[in-house]
């Protein structure tokens, strides 16, 4: 059923590209001019290091098409990228820090958890995108949830779980995620060694036998939306077993992770009663994946104020956002602060906008923009954007 939407989405993306190419505002600059301090030609995140901080690098269209087709980049950033006719990510300290840790992790030890935290609009999701790009280049198996809030607060539909009493399935979202997972890992899933460890029985007639490829499981979930939620949990379980056996190396990246622990969701039962997050079937699988009891994996989550209701957006710190239960679930984790732009980063960002002919330079521009936006990356983008 979702095969058609998939085709539709791809077509849309192609249409957009052609449309933008005919209208884009930028003039193609010679390669020499591009070699300025705000931009690096190093497009492979493997080679990024401290000297590249505050520089922009280009995310190749081919990579983007594999990684972020079904979400992963914030919407406003996506729009800007379309206007600029290229997707450029700034190399910033938090992402470099995580990447550096990932290079040094002993993968035979239990999975390490990283928690990206920071105030609204400081670039947690984009830091995550940078890390994902690195993991993609390193041939990690990517388990990426673009935004948990979409499940807990804006789910498309809900139904009672058939296999588990009292649980709620959000099957359309689950199928959407399966599609996302499949696209991101297309090149790895085709490998023959990724096989299921046990029989998965869906109904009397439908089973996925042992030693069938993981891809088959995913495609079954997409085709039979009724079982999508359970398929997601099954895949999470399989990934854990496969990684433990050393058949693949996995990165778990979950954006807005604290929504799994926020008591008030907008998922409702048939009787219109709000459902606790742990009663949503999908939660189980991802909480299972974020435990430390497996190896060959690294877990990166973000905690974000936006993932919870507005009245509770009091603090941006991880203990508050995760709550007691969430903290105990993740503990010990490495908190990584994503802060506002430094002076250097503001200048670099404005240089990039100038190069894209997005803003008009005038004396005192840098100081004014820095002051008005309070160095907040999102605000800076909004101030420089069109009306």
């Amino acid at each position, binding site marked *: 059923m979702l095969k058609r939407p998939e085709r539709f989405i791809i077509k849309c993306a192609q249409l957009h590209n052609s449309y933008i190419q005919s209208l884009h505002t930028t003039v193609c600059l010679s390669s020499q001019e591009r070699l300025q301090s705000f931009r690096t030609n190093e497009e492979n995140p493997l080679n990024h290091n401290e000297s590249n901080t505050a520089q922009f690098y280009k995310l190749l269209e081919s990579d983007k098409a594999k990684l972020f087709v079904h979400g992963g980049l914030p919407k406003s950033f996506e729009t800007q990228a379309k206007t600029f006719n290229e997707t450029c990510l700034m190399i910033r300290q938090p992402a470099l820090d995580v990447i*550096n*840790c990932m290079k040094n992790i002993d993968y035979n*030890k239990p999975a390490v958890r990283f928690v990206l935290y920071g105030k609204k609009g400081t670039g947690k999701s984009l830091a995550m995108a940078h890390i994902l790009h690195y993991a993609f280049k390193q041939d990690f198996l990517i388990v990426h949830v673009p935004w948990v809030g979409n499940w807990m607060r804006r789910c498309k539909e809900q139904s009672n779980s058939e296999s588990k009493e009292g649980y709620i399935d959000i099957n359309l979202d689950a199928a959407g995620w399966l599609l996302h997972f499949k696209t991101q890992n297309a090149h790895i899933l085709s490998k023959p060694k990724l096989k299921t460890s046990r029989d998965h029985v869906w109904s009397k007639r439908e089973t996925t036998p042992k030693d069938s490829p993981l891809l088959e499981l995913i495609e079954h979930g997409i085709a039979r939306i009724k079982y999508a939620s359970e398929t997601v949990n099954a895949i999470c379980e399989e990934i854990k077993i496969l990684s433990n056996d050393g058949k693949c190396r996995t990165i778990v990246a979950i954006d807005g992770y604290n929504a799994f622990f926020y008591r008030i969701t907008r998922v409702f039962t048939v009787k219109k009663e709000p459902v606790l997050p742990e009663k949503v079937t999908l939660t189980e699988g991802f909480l299972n994946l974020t435990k430390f009891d497996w190896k060959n994996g690294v877990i990166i989550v973000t905690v974000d104020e936006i993932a919870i209701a507005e009245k509770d957006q009091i*603090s941006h*710190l*991880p*203990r508050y956002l995760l709550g007691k239960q969430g903290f*105990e679930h993740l503990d010990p984790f490495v*908190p990584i602060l994503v802060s506002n732009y430094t002076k250097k980063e503001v200048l670099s960002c404005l240089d990039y906008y100038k190069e894209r002919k997005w803003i008009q330079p005038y004396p005192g521009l840098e100081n004014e923009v820095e002051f008005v936006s309070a160095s907040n990356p999102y605000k800076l983008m909004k101030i420089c954007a069109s009306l």
Partner: protein
Amino acid sequence: MLSYSRSFEKFLFSNVEKSLPFSIAYSTEVKKEVKEEFRVLNLKNVKRQTQPKRAQKQLEALPPRTNKMPVDQDWGSVWPGPRSFHPASVPLPVRQGYVEKGVAPDKYANAELIKIPNFLHLTPPVIKRQCEALKKFCTPWPKALENDKECEKHFPIEVTSSDYCHSAPTIRNPLARIVTIKFKLSSLNLNERAKDKFLRLVGERYNKETDTVAIVTDRCPLKKQNYDYAMYLLTACYHESWNVEPWEELKSEADMEYYDWSKNASKKSVEALFGKQTEDIPNVKEYSEAVSTLMNEGESEYSVTKYGDSVRKLLGLPDAPKT
């Protein structure tokens, strides 16, 4: 018949009596008119000649007592007790107050001097004399109690009460019944649990900064009773805090008033992570301290960073870059 005649006689006589004065009055009025002047009709009420008022005899104020005071007088007998200022008794040219122009007003009729309290009754020779008088009631200071530390050690409880001495119909002052006892919490023999319970029992009577407990009793009418009651309270609180009630054993982690790392999920997960006992894990102490601070002192940018650093050390990850 006789009675009748008598009554008639009486009647007649009384009639004669009534008519007689009339005739007399008439005759005297004629005589007066002849003697007096013609009276003036005084319609406008013009003042006539008035008698001069007798002049009030001004009382002469006595010269101030200070004029007669000898230089070597005994000041203690002039001013024996606390009293508000009196200019004639104080042989000092004191001035007090403020005027826009000119000098400060002198001591006579000076309300400012009367208002302020004075210590004229507490001059050094008087104090010395009073101390001498009291000396015979005192006992020598114990030699073992040389400094405050020794005193505190041997007499951990400090009892404070007030006596009032004043002239009034009653010599009893209700404020004299109030007794305050103070002691250091460290002087009590309490373990961690008992101390916690003791602090809960005494509540706001405990001062954390000075580590002292102050119990004030004023519910009984007499000082002795209040003192006994304070001692009773101290004893009761002490023994009660050592008592362990059956329901206290039910205290679970959720009831804890502070975060104890060794009793929490954090310890269990770290042990599971390493597959070892806590004691065998390197760098675990710093980590446990960081978690405890994070939980007990609330979350801040600083405590989260500290936590992160300790986790990195625990898991053997590279240090966070310095910004």
